[in-house]
C-alpha cells in the first residue's frame, strides 16, 4: 500500500520550510530564499496531476488526499506563490531580516494544506494551529512598527481563544459520537435519531465559533479590520485568501461528511451569521477611509455570501463555493498586490485619497484595479460575477429565497464603496502639492507579470468559465 504516493504534495509542502531553514542558517539571501520557496510550491503544484492520476488509495487515517483536497492544495499553493512574489518586492524595502518571513509563509501553507485534506478532528486541529502560529509571526513581522505589533498581539489573543473554543467543541462532539473521524461520524449520525442531543449541538456551536474566527464572519470579525490594516500588505492578502480558503475547504468537507447541515438549528445559525456578515460588512465598509480596512469589511461581507452557498448544501452549492473562492482569490490577491506594489518605504498606499487621479498617471494599474473592484462588486465579464451568479443559482436551487434576496440587497449597498474607490482614480489629480502624494513606484518585472496574469485570469474566468467549472465539478464530485 503506497500511502506515501498520495501524500507527496503534503510532504513537499512540509519539506519546503525545512529546506529554507537549513539554507538560511548557512547563507542569508533574500533572492535565494524566494526562489526556493517558489520552487517548493511550484513542485507541489506540479505533482498534483500525477497524484490525482495515480492509483494510490487516497484516504489515510487522518488525511483524505482525494481530488477535492488536491484541487484545494493546488489553489492554496498557487495563491501562496503569488504572495511570495508580492512579498519580495514589499520586503526589499523593509528593515531587518527578511528570510524567515518565507519560512513562516510556507509553513502556514503547509498547515492550510493539512486543513484542506483533513478528514479527522486531530488533523483539523493540527493544521489550524500550524497555520495560526505561523500567522502570529507573519502579522507582526515588521515588528518595529506599532501597528504591526498591535495587530500581531490582537490576532494572537483572539486566535488562541478561538482555538480553545474549537477544542472544547471537538471534545463535546467526541463525547456524544465517540469518534473524531468525519466519515465515521457520518455513519454514526446516520444510525441515530434525527433529534440532536444538547451535547452535540453545543459541540457544533463551538466548532462554528472556532471556524468563524478564522473566517472573520460576524460576530467573530472584530479582529479583522485592525489586523488587516496593521499587517504587512502581502500578509493581509494571505489572510484574506489562503487562510480563509483552507478553512472554507474544511467546512465544506465537514458539512458534507460530518452532518453539520443536517440539523435545522445549525443551518439557521449559519444563515444568521451569513446575513449579519453581509450587512454589517457592507455597511461598515461604507464608513472606511483606509483601503485595507475597507477591504477587511468587504471580505467579511464576501464570506457572508459564501456561507449562503455553504448552506445551500446541494452539490451546486459546493461547486458554487469553490468557484466563488477561486474568483475571490484572484481578485483579492490582485487588489492587495496592487496596494503592496504601489506602496514604498515612506508610505503605504492604503488611503482612498492616495488613489486620486491614478488613472491619469498609471492607466494600466488603475485599469487593472478597476477590473478587480468590479469583480468584487460582481459586474459581468469578471470572475467575481460568475462566482456571485453561481452562488445565487445555488441559493435559488435550494429554495433559499430569503437569503438570496438579502444577498442581493446587501451587495447593492456594497457597490457604493467599490465605486467610490474607482471614481476616485478617475478624478483629476490634486493640484495642491502639500497633499499626501500617491505613491508612484514603478513595478518590478515579477510584480508586473503576476498582476497582469491575475488580471488576465480574472477576465478569462469571467468570460469563459466553462473549463474551470468543469475542473471544479470533477474535484467536488469526489467529495460525495
Amino acid at each position, binding site marked *: 500500500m503506497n500511502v506515501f504516493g498520495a501524500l507527496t504534495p503534503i510532504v513537499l509542502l512540509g519539506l519546503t520550510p525545512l529546506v529554507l531553514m537549513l539554507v538560511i542558517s548557512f547563507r542569508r539571501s533574500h533572492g535565494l530564499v524566494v526562489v526556493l520557496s517558489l520552487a517548493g510550491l511550484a513542485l507541489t503544484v506540479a505533482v498534483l496531476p500525477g497524484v490525482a492520476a495515480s492509483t494510490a488509495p487516497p484516504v489515510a487515517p487522518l488525511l483524505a488526499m482525494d481530488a477535492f483536497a488536491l484541487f484545494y492544495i493546488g489553489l492554496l499553493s498557487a495563491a501562496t506563490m503569488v504572495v511570495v512574489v508580492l512579498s519580495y518586492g514589499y520586503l526589499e524595502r523593509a528593515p531587518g531580516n527578511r528570510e524567515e518571513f518565507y519560512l513562516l509563509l510556507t509553513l502556514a501553507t503547509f498547515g492550510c494544506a493539512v486543513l484542506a485534506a483533513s478528514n479527522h478532528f486531530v488533523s483539523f486541529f493540527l493544521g489550524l494551529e500550524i497555520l495560526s502560529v505561523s500567522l502570529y509571526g507573519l502579522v507582526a513581522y515588521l515588528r518595529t512598527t506599532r501597528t504591526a505589533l498591535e495587530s500581531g498581539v490582537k490576532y494572537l489573543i483572539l486566535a488562541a481563544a478561538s482555538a480553545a473554543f474549537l477544542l472544547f467543541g471537538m471534545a463535546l462532539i467526541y463525547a456524544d459520537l465517540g469518534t473524531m473521524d468525519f466519515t465515521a461520524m457520518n455513519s454514526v449520525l446516520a444510525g441515530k435519531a434525527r433529534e440532536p442531543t444538547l451535547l452535540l449541538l453545543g459541540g457544533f456551536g463551538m466548532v462554528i465559533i472556532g471556524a468563524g474566527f478564522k473566517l472573520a464572519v460576524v460576530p467573530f470579525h472584530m479582529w479583522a479590520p485592525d489586523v488587516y490594516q496593521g499587517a504587512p500588505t502581502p500578509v493581509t492578502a494571505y489572510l484574506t485568501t489562503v487562510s480563509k480558503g483552507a478553512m472554507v475547504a474544511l467546512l465544506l468537507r465537514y458539512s458534507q461528511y460530518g452532518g453539520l447541515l443536517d440539523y435545522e438549528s445549525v443551518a439557521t445559525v449559519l444563515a444568521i451569521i451569513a446575513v449579519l456578515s453581509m450587512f454589517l460588512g457592507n455597511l461598515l465598509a461604507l464608513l472606511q477611509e483606509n483601503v485595507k480596512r475597507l477591504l477587511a469589511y468587504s471580505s467579511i461581507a464576501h464570506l457572508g455570501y459564501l456561507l449562503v452557498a455553504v448552506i445551500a448544501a446541494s452539490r451546486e452549492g459546493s461547486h458554487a463555493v469553490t468557484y466563488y473562492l477561486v474568483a475571490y482569490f484572484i481578485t483579492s490577491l490582485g487588489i492587495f498586490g496592487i496596494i503592496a506594489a504601489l506602496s514604498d518605504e515612506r508610505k503605504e498606499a492604503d488611503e482612498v485619497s492616495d488613489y486620486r487621479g491614478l488613472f*491619469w498617471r498609471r*492607466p494600466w494599474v488603475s485599469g487593472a484595479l478597476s477590473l478587480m473592484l*468590479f469583480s468584487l*462588486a460582481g*459586474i*459581468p*465579464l469578471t470572475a467575481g*460575477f460568475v462566482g456571485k*451568479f*453561481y452562488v*445565487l*443559482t445555488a441559493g*435559488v*436551487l435550494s429554495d433559499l429565497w430569503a437569503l*438570496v*434576496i438579502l444577498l*442581493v440587497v446587501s*451587495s*447593492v449597498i456594497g*457597490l*457604493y464603496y467599490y*465605486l*467610490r474607490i474607482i*471614481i476616485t482614480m*478617475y*478624478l483629476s489629480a490634486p493640484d495642491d502639492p502639500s497633499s499626501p502624494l500617491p505613491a508612484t513606484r514603478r513595478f518590478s518585472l515579477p510584480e508586473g507579470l503576476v498582476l497582469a496574469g491575475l488580471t488576465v485570469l480574472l477576465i478569462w474566468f469571467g468570460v*469563459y*468559465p*466553462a473549463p474551470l*467549472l*468543469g475542473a471544479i*465539478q470533477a474535484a467536488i464530485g469526489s467529495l460525495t
Partner: protein
Amino acid sequence: MSVAWILLMPLAGGLAAWIAGRWSDLWPRWISLGTALLHLLLLLATWGVFFAGIETGQGGWLVVYKQPWIPQLGISFHLAVDGLSLLLLLLTSFLTVLAVLTSWRSVTRSVGFFHFNLLLILTALSGVFIAFDLFLFFAFWEISLLPLYFLIGIWGYENRVYATTKFFIITQGSGLLMLLAILGLVVVHWQSTGVMTFDYLELVGTPMSKATAWWLMLGFFIAFAVKLPVVPFHTWLPDAHTQAPTAGSVALAGLVLKIGAYGMLRFVMTIFPQAAADFALAAMILAVVGILYGALLALGQTDLKRMVAYTSISHMGFVLLGIFTWNELALQGAVIIMLSHGFSAAALFMLVGDLQHRTHTREIDRFGGLWAVTPRMGGVGLFFAMASLGLPGLASFVGEFLVLLGAFRVNVPLTVLASVGLVAATIYSLWMMQKVYYGANTGEWKLDDTSGREMAIMASLIGATLWLGLYPQPVLTTSGDALAQMRQFADKARAPASRPPVKEVQGPKAMASIPPDGGRRP
C-alpha cells in the same frame, strides 16, 4: 453569415481607438467614425436582405448563431436577429455615428478612452438586442452600464460623481433583481422539465403557477421599469442625463431607455403573458402617470438639459402604454415611438450640448432671443420642438397616434388622460422655444451659428424624423412579423388559461390597411 460581427466589429474598433489615442487625438475619432459608419452600412445591407425576405414571405428570424458557452449550466451564446432587433440595432448604430460626430470638438480629454467607451456602448447594446440567452442578455445589459458610468463620471459636468454613482447603483440594483427573476424562471423550468437552460426560446411558455409567474414577472418588470423609466423608478434619469456629456446623453436617452422597452416587449409580455395581462391596468396607470408627470416636471425646470430629460420620461410613458395595451396597433406605435424618440431626444440633447459648448450655461433664464444670433440652430430647434409635441407628418405623431388608437380600444379613460400629455407636450415645447430662441436677447449673446458638422448631424436626424413621419410603412413591415410572433408566443403560453380579454383584428394585412396619418402604401 454569422451575426457575431455585430458585436465584434465595434469592440475591435473601440480597442483600436483606445490604442490609437496614445499617439493622437484625431485618430480615435476617425477610427470610431469609420467603425460606426461601417456598422451602420452593414446593418442597412442586412435590412435590405431582410426586407427582400419579407416580400417573398420568409420573414421571422434573420440570422441565428448558437454556441455552447457554459454547458454545465445550460448557458449558450445564442444570438438572433428579428425585425424588432434589427430596427433597434439600426437606431443604435445610427446614433453612435452621431455621438462620435457631436463629440468631435467638445471632447478633448483622454480621447482614446472616450471613444472606446462609446463603441463599447454600441457593442453592449447591440448585444442586448440580439441576445436570446437570458444569461447573455443579462451580461450585455450589465456591461452597458460600465461605459456609461465612465462617460458620465469622467467627461460629465459639475455634479458628475453623484450622478454617475446614483445611476450605477440604481440600475445595477434593478439588474440584480432581474437576475434573481431569471434564476427563478430557470429553476421553475428545470423543476418542470429537468432541463437546465437559459435559452429564451426554450423558456418561453414555461408552465408555472399564478403566484410564481406574478413574482417573476414583477422582478423583470421592475428592472425594465428602472431603465425605461417608469415613474417611481425614474430618479436617476434627470441627474444622469443632465450631468452626462452630450454623447452620453444621446446614448442614454436615445438608446439605454430603449432597452427597458425592448425587455418589456421581449421578456415580460411573452414569458409571463397571463401575469402581464393581469398587471396591464396597473402598468397602464403607471404609464399615464409617467406621461403627465414627466410633462409637468419638464415645465417646471430651469435647466434646459434637465427639461429635455423630463420630456423623455413623458415620451417613454407612451411606450409603456403601448406595450401593455398589447394589441397590434399600440405595439407598432410603441416601436415607432422608440425610434422617433431616439431621433428627437438625441437632437434636442445635441442642441443643448451645442448651446452649452458656446455659452457654458444651461440655465433657461439666461437664454433668450437666440434666433437672431443663431437662426439655423433656432430653425433646427423649432423642428425638433415640433417633433416632440407630435406634429403630424413627423415621427412621434405616428407613434403616439397609433398608441392612443390602440389604447382607446382597451381603456378609454386612460387614453383620454394620456392625450392630455400631448397638450402638455405642446406647452413645454413651445415654452422652450419662447424662452430660448424668441424674445429679447437679454444675455447679449454673440454666438457662432451651427457649423457644417453640426448641421450635417441635424440634417440626418431631420431626414430620419421626416421619413418616419411621412412613410413609416417599411418600419411597420419590419417590426410586424416580430411583434406578431411575440403575440403568438404569448397566446401559446396562455392557451391553457383563459383567452386574452381583448380580441383584436390580427395579422399584418389588417395592420397595413390602417394608414396612419395618411402614410401612403408602397
